C-alpha cells in the first residue's frame, strides 16, 4: 500500500450538529474531523458527551441537524444520496449485539451479502465460514443467537458486519454490555481487525484498547471535540483540564 493511499480521507465530517427540542439540547455541537484509510480512531468521553450520537451520525442512524458528512467523496447528508448503498460499505457493531434472534448464525451472516451483494448461497456461506473460523466460532454456524454467550454474540456481530466487506467499521461501545471475562475475546478480534488494516471508528471505555490499538484518540464532552491526538499524547500528556479529570476517573 502506498503512502499516498494510506492518507486518503474516507470520512470527512464538517460542522456536524445534532439538536433536540429545537436547539435546547445540543447532542453534537459542531464536530469537524477527518477519518483516513487504515486509521483506528477511538472516541472517548463521559456519558452524555455525544460520542455515540457522533458515531451513529456517521451512517445516518441519527439524522444530523446541520453540517455535512462526506463518505468516499459523496455527501451522505444530502437527500439525493442512496444511504442504503453507502451503509453497505460501513459495518456497524452495537453495544447490544443486535443479532437477529429468529435466524441461525449462518443466516445472520449470509442474509445481507445474499440480498444486497447478490452473492449465491454457496459463496455467502463459504465466506461466512471463513470469517467464523477467524473468530473461532465455525462450529456454531447452525446455532441460534440465544444459544451463545455475550462475547460469542459480539464476535458474531463483528463478522456479520465484515461479511459485507465494508470500507469502515463503526463500533458503538462493543464491550459495554459484556461480562468482564468476555471483554478480552472481543477486543482480541478488534485488535486483529486493526492489524489487518481495517479503518475503524470505535466508541469505547476500554482505555487499554485505545492506548494499544488506536492511532488517534478523540476526547469529546458536551457535544464537542475537546482534544484530539495520538494515544501517547492523550494518555501521557493531556492538555485540557476536562480530559485530565476524565482520565483521572477512568484510569
Amino acid at each position, binding site marked *: 500500500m502506498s503512502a499516498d493511499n494510506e492518507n486518503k480521507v474516507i470520512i470527512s465530517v464538517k460542522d456536524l450538529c445534532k439538536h433536540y427540542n429545537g436547539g435546547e439540547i445540543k447532542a453534537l455541537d459542531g464536530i469537524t474531523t477527518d477519518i483516513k484509510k487504515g486509521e483506528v480512531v477511538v472516541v472517548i468521553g463521559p456519558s452524555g458527551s455525544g460520542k455515540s450520537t457522533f458515531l451513529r451520525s456517521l*451512517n445516518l*442512524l441519527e*439524522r444530523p441537524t446541520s453540517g455535512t458528512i462526506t463518505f468516499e467523496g459523496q455527501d451522505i447528508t444530502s*437527500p439525493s444520496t442512496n444511504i*442504503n*448503498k453507502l*451503509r*453497505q460499505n*460501513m*459495518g*456497524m457493531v*452495537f453495544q*447490544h449485539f*443486535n*443479532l*437477529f*434472534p*429468529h435466524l441461525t448464525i449462518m443466516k445472520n451472516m449470509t*442474509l*445481507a451479502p445474499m*440480498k*444486497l451483494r447478490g452473492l449465491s448461497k454457496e459463496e455467502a456461506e463459504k465466506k461466512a465460514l471463513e470469517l467464523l473460523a477467524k473468530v473461532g466460532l465455525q462450529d456454531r454456524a447452525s446455532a441460534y443467537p*440465544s444459544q451463545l454467550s455475550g462475547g460469542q454474540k459480539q464476535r458474531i456481530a463483528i463478522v*456479520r*458486519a465484515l461479511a*459485507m466487506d465494508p470500507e469502515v467499521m463503526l463500533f458503538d461501545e462493543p464491550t459495554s454490555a459484556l461480562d468482564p471475562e468476555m471483554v478480552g475475546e472481543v477486543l482480541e478480534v478488534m485488535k486483529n481487525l486493526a492489524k489487518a488494516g481495517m479503518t475503524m471508528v470505535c466508541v469505547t471505555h476500554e482505555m487499554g484498547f485505545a492506548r494499544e490499538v488506536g492511532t488517534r484518540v478523540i476526547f469529546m464532552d458536551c457535544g464537542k471535540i475537546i482534544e484530539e491526538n495520538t494515544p501517547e499524547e492523550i494518555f501521557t500528556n493531556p492538555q485540557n483540564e476536562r480530559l485530565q479529570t476524565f482520565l483521572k476517573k477512568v484510569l
Partner: protein
Amino acid sequence: MYTKKANLILIVGIIALVLSVFPGAGLICAVFGLVLYAANKAVRTSIRADIGRGLSIIALLVNLVLITYILLFRHLDNAPAWLLSLRESFYATKFYGEFENNFLIDKRYTYISKGLGVTFEVTFFAVLLGIALGVIVALVRSSYDTLKEELKGGFGKAILYILYKICGVYLTVIRGTPVVVQLMIIYFVIFASSNNKILVAVLAFGINSGAYVAEIIRGGIESVDKGQFEAGRSLGFGYVRTMTFIIIPQAFKTVLPALANEFIVLIKETSVSGYVGLQELTKGGDIIRSRTYSAFMPLIAVAIIYLLIVIFFSWIVSLLERRLKSSER
C-alpha cells in the same frame, strides 16, 4: 424416556379418532388414551401428549354422540327386548318430545347445520379480509412513525401522511362504533341495492376486525427491539426489506396468539348477522324457536356449539403459544 410415552399418547389419540367409524372401538381407544395421559405425570410437559389427549377427548365426544344416536334411532337387528323397551320409554318422555319438535320435525336441525356452515364461511373470509386490512394499516402507521424523520418533505411523505391520517380515522370510527351498527349501515345504506348478505357480513366483520388486527400487529412490530431495525438498516437494507426479513418475522411470533384470539372473538361476533337477516348459526336457532315456541333446546344447542368451537380453537391457540415459547429457547 417420557417422549416415547408422549408419542404413544399422540398415536392412541389419532387411532381413537379414526376408530370412531366403529363407535365402540373408538370409545375404548379414547378412554385408553386418557388413562395413559392421567397415569403419566411426567408426560404433561410434552406438547405431543397434549395433542394426543385433545384428540382423545374429541374422539370420546364423537363416540358418545354416535353411540347415543345408534342406540336411540338406528334399526337394531337382534336387539334385546329390554333395550327396545328402554327406547320406547325414552320416546315417551317430555324431553324427547321437545327434542323431536325442535330438531327432527321438518328437518329443523338443518337450520342449525346450514347456519353453522354460514357462520364458518363468514368468519373465514372476514378473518382473511381483517388480516389483510390490519397488516396494511399497521404498516402504514408504523412506517410513518419511523420514516417521518427520514423522508424530508416531498411527495412520498405527503402521500404517507395522508394514508396515515386515513388509517387513524378508520381506527377511531371502527373501534368507536358497535359492530351491529356498522353491519346495518353496510347492509341498509351502502349495499342497499344488493341482497348478498354473506358478502355484506364478510365486509362488515372483516373491516371491523381489521381495525383490531391493525393494533395487534402494530403492537407486535413495536415490541421488536429498536436495535433490530437499526441492525438491519446499518447492514444496508432499506425500510421495506428490513421489515420483511427482520422485523415482521419476529413480530409475527409475538402476535400469533393474539391474532388467533381475535379469530375466536370474530366467530362469536358473527352471531349478530341476524340483524340483516343472514341465517347463520344463531339466527338458525332463533328461527327454530320462532317455529316451535320453545326456546330452551334450540338456544342451548346453539350455545353449546359456539362453546365447543371456542374451546377447540382456544386449545389450538394454547398449543401454538407453547410451541412458540419452546422454540425461543
